[in-house]
């Protein structure tokens, strides 16, 4: 099965890649959208002072 990889996805905020699998007749059999990045704001914000939140979480996306 033929595979087409788009890596990285561009012109957006964030990281992503797309894997497209083609069948024997060249049609799309399946497509996978993958996020190859994780920073873990969900975890490392825990326990930080509440007044820090509006200043930490803008760094999730600065675009």
């Amino acid at each position, binding site marked *: *099965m033929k*595979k087409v990889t*788009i*890596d*990285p996805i*561009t*012109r*957006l*905020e*964030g*990281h992503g890649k797309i*894997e497209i*699998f083609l069948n024997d007749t060249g049609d799309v*059999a*399946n497509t*996978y959208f*993958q996020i*190859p*990045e*994780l*920073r*873990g704001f*969900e*975890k*490392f*914000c*825990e*326990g*930080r*002072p509440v*007044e*820090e939140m509006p*200043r*930490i979480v*803008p*760094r*999730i*996306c*600065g*675009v």
Partner: protein
Amino acid sequence: MAKLKLALYWAGACGGCDVAVLDVNEKILDVANLADIVFWPIALDFKYHHVEAMPDKSIDVCLFNGCIRSSEQEHIAKMLRAKSKVLVSFGSCACFGGIPALANFTTRAEIMERVYIEAPSNENPNKTLPQTKVKVAEGEITLPELFENVLTLAQVVPVEYFVPGCPPTVDIILKVVNALATNSLPPVGAVIASDKTLCDECDRKKENKKITRIYRTQEIIPDSQKCLLEQGLLCMGPATRGGCGALCVKVNIPCRGCFGPPAGVADQGAKLVSSIASIYEAKDEKDIARMVNEVADPAGTFYRFGMSSSMLKRKRSQKR
């Protein structure tokens, strides 16, 4: 002069550094006159295989922002290092770990658990976690490996210059552009900002006053003319490199520390603790204990942007 070949990349980052490059407004046209951009995922459609195909040292300058937290980010860092004559660690995440390095107070396993299993927005009864390789009906798909620690760019590859800031200011970005245009780059290893502290460029009045308690920012409205630290607010100024133009303190917000430690200071957090200790007036042991408790989140405050490059680097394991 032939046009320079310029690459910009984001590793573990928010995109704010990339946008900061565009904050130079019409001066971006000077950049366009000076350089051809050969790789910039946020703005242009080049793929990793395009970069791989470039000869070594064929990129004149690469501005690399973001921390290194995965095998992919490490791989791209090594690739761009090989392809670039000058590699610039651009922004606080690349230089010190930045906000994402607050993750060094926790572990990879705890992050995975929280993000993919516990988070209330998830429904994951089988407790599936991301895998580096997964067999699917059509073949195999892969993801990079998440590292245990957040690293700085310079902890992974050699770097020529450091441009701090969350994000780097327009003035500093233009300084870099002008240095490239006039071929007047500083000695390798230089930090493109001030060598002195933020206090050095802050025009607030210092009275060498002692403090008797520490306040959280929402507890007082500080005097806009006087030193914030002397008013009991945790201003990172004495432990932070200048060069930003004192942006935060000008709007009555204590310095956040995003420019990292000044020249000659190895550990930003330790330096701030020592600055506070020297102005804190404690009557007795009890007083000292009270003050320590007044700091809501000492580790996250003193190492807000700098955990990766600090002497500690990460929270130590409880087990021995």
